[in-house]
Each structure stands twice: as structure tokens, then as C-alpha cells.
């Protein structure tokens, strides 16, 4: 699921940076992720109903449900990004240098988060706290800049702001995944 989510988000970010029509493919992948999330949830409920899991077993199941949801959300935001590109002038109007800077950070966060997921190394996840803060301030900074720049065209402002918002949400879900891994492994969240 994480591989598929990574492929989906990368494709959509690539489209935002370079243009290109990817909405059909990204939609298919996003739907696939949603389907997998439904499967995980169904399996988790069955395990709870049949085995009444406790302790680490219970934490694994709870975290799996949350992580699968986060991965499905990554797919959905990736699709939202390509939709913005599709709807607003093929994405040509967007502030590409800004989005590239932001998406680089978001991709790094996502990969670190998936590394935590694969290795259960919670220490790696700590790096995400700072990066999430940086992504947040980029997004907020852009929104604030909108009001102080009257020459900005509507198409650029809207497409950049929307994509930045989706990227910011992707970063959040990458962080949530790392948090769930921490809970699964240690029983506590990273503070």
C-alpha cells in the first residue's frame, strides 16, 4: 500500500512540476488505495470480533487501520492535485518554483515516514516533526503573501494555493503514519 501511495503521490507531484495529463492514472491508483483501506478495515474488524486482541496485537490492529486510512488519504490528495491541474489551465499558471520547493520537502517527509513504517525505527520519525513545521510555514507564508501581492493573477493564486494545501495535508498524513508506527511499537505517540 505504501509503495502504491508513493507512486501515486510522486506521479501527481511530477505532473504539478512538469505538466502532463495524469489524472486518469492517478485516479485509478487513488481508488485502488481506497479499496485497500476498505480491505484493511474489514480485516481489522474481523480480527477484533473473533480474537479480542489486546496489548501489542491490539495496537498493531489499531495502527494498521489508521495507517491504511492515511495512505488512502495520500492517494486522494494526489488525485486532488491533478484535478486542480486539469481544471485550471493545465497547471501552467501555478507558481512552479514555489511548489517544487514545497513538494521536495513533502516527498522527503513521505519517504522518511514510509521508512519508519518498514523498519519500525521510531527515531527516524522524529526528524519529521521539524519538517512538518517547515511545510506548514511554507503553506501559511504563501497564503499570507496572496493578500500583499495585488498583481497576482487569480489562476496562479488559486491553483498554487490549492496544490500547496494538498501538499500540506500529504505532509500531515506522513507525520500521522510515523505517529501510528510509534504507538504500535512503543505504546506512546511521539511528542
Amino acid at each position, binding site marked *: 500500500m505504501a509503495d502504491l501511495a508513493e507512486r501515486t503521490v510522486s506521479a501527481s507531484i511530477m505532473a504539478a512540476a512538469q505538466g502532463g495529463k495524469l489524472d486518469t492514472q492517478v485516479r485509478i491508483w487513488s481508488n485502488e488505495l481506497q479499496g485497500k483501506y476498505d480491505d484493511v478495515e474489514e480485516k481489522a474488524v474481523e480480527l477484533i470480533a473473533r480474537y479480542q486482541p*489486546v496489548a501489542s496485537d491490539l495496537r498493531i490492529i489499531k495502527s494498521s487501520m489508521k495507517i491504511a486510512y492515511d495512505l488512502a488519504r495520500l492517494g486522494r490528495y494526489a488525485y486532488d492535485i491533478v484535478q486542480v491541474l486539469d481544471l485550471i489551465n493545465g497547471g501552467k499558471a501555478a507558481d512552479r518554483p514555489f511548489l517544487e520547493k514545497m513538494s521536495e520537502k513533502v516527498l522527503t517527509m513521505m519517504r522518511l515516514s514510509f521508512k519508519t513504517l518498514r523498519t519500525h525505527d521510531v527515531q527516524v520519525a522524529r526528524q519529521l516533526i521539524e519538517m512538518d513545521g517547515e511545510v506548514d510555514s511554507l503553506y501559511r507564508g504563501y497564503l499570507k503573501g496572496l493578500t500583499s501581492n495585488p498583481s497576482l493573477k487569480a489562476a496562479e493564486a488559486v491553483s498554487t494555493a490549492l496544490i500547496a494545501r494538498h501538499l500540506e495535508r500529504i505532509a500531515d498524513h506522513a507525520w500521522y503514519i510515523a505517529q501510528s508506527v510509534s504507538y504500535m511499537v512503543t505504546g506512546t505517540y511521539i511528542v
Partner: protein
Amino acid sequence: MSELAIETKALSVWFGRNHAVRNVTLEIQANQITGIIGPSGCGKSTLLRCFNRMNDLIPNARVEGIVLLNGENIYQLDVDPTEVRRRVGMVFQKPNPFPKSVYENVAFGPRLNGIASESELDSIVRESLEAAALWDEVKDRLGESATGLSGGQQQRLCIARALAVDPEVILMDEPCSALDPQATAKIEQLMTELAKEYTVVVVTHNMQEAARVSNSTAFMYLGELVEYGPTAQIFENPKNELTENYITGRFG
């Protein structure tokens, strides 16, 4: 901070050479349900039976350490074990009503404690049966034999019998293991009600039962108290690996 109903300090029990309970120090909060779990033979029932000196009745049993019941050491020489057992009632795995009427089962204890007035007994019987959530089901058959009740009703009758002598603590040793899910649900609901007035300590093999009803859970293994804490913590994030392995079914 609530008060302590029972406190043990360095409590050990031997049956002959078998060191069944090992150096257990434990604080049981008043008006709470405390669950004791652990594999067969871990000493959980023996520990429970220390709380009303039931182990005294077993030949070769030797108890060391301190058990405080509301601050008073119940193993002191001048303490009457019968009085301890009035203050600390017990309900067993198999419902064990006397082969007498429903009424007499509940009136038995108060009578033994010197209550002779019929009207007083009547009200004790009614109040106890009400507190055990059984009154509505038996009020028209108080004179009938208790052995004619269903298993779940018999168990609630035993609870009523324990309540009739006005105890401070109620000990339950596997109270639901002989009952079907519906009767179990009733007893578990009743335990929660009882905890408003009494302190409840329950020993159970059924971990889900401990998880459902108890506020605190103690895990025992090989006579030792391994871990004791709020039930949610024990079942979600136990600190001790033995606890983790036991409750997840990896041994025991």
C-alpha cells in the same frame, strides 16, 4: 484519591512446601472493581482467599505478611476469622445456594448474626435481592427451593446472600465461568452496580471479563504479582513482557 479497602504487605502463602503466593504487596482501592488474572496455579485464587482468611480452613496452609482490611490487620491474633468473613463476602465459580428456599438462603447469614425479627429479616432479604438484581424474578417464589433457579439466578442469589450480612468487600472467584453469555452480562453489570457501595475483587480466567469490568487489573504468574495497573493500560500497553505474552495468548 480514593481510600484503600485492602492492602497487602509482603504477603506469602505456603501449602506445605509449595510457596503459592510470593511476597505480594498490593493496594486495592475502595469502591472499585479489581481484577486478578493469571494462568492456572499462579496463586490468584489463593491471594483472593487471603482477603477473608479462607486459607485458614486448608490444612498445611501458612500465611506470612500483612493483610489490612480498611486499615486493620486481619491476621492479628485477636481477630475473629468469622467476623472477617462477614465483612468480606465471597462468591464462587459454581453457584452454591443452600438446599433451602430462596428466602432462607438470604436470611441465613443475618439470622446467624443474631437478627431474629421477621420484619427486619424480610427487609434485609428484599434489599439484598434487589441489590443483586434478582428481586423482580423471585419475589413471587421466595418460598420455593433455590435449586430450582437457573444458574445465573443462583449466582445472583449467592451474591444476595453475601450482601445480606452487610459486607465491606465482595470477593468473586470466577463468578461467570459457569454461566452463559446472557447471565454473564447480567452479573458483570451487577458488579459495576455493586462497586458503588462495595469494593469488588474478582479473579478470572477470562481476560476479556477482567478487561470489561475491572478498574484495575493485577497479573500474577508463579505466585508473584507481575504487574498491577489501570485496566486500560494493562490491556493496551502492558509494561511487563510476561503480562504482554500472557494476555496476547503467547503462553499460559
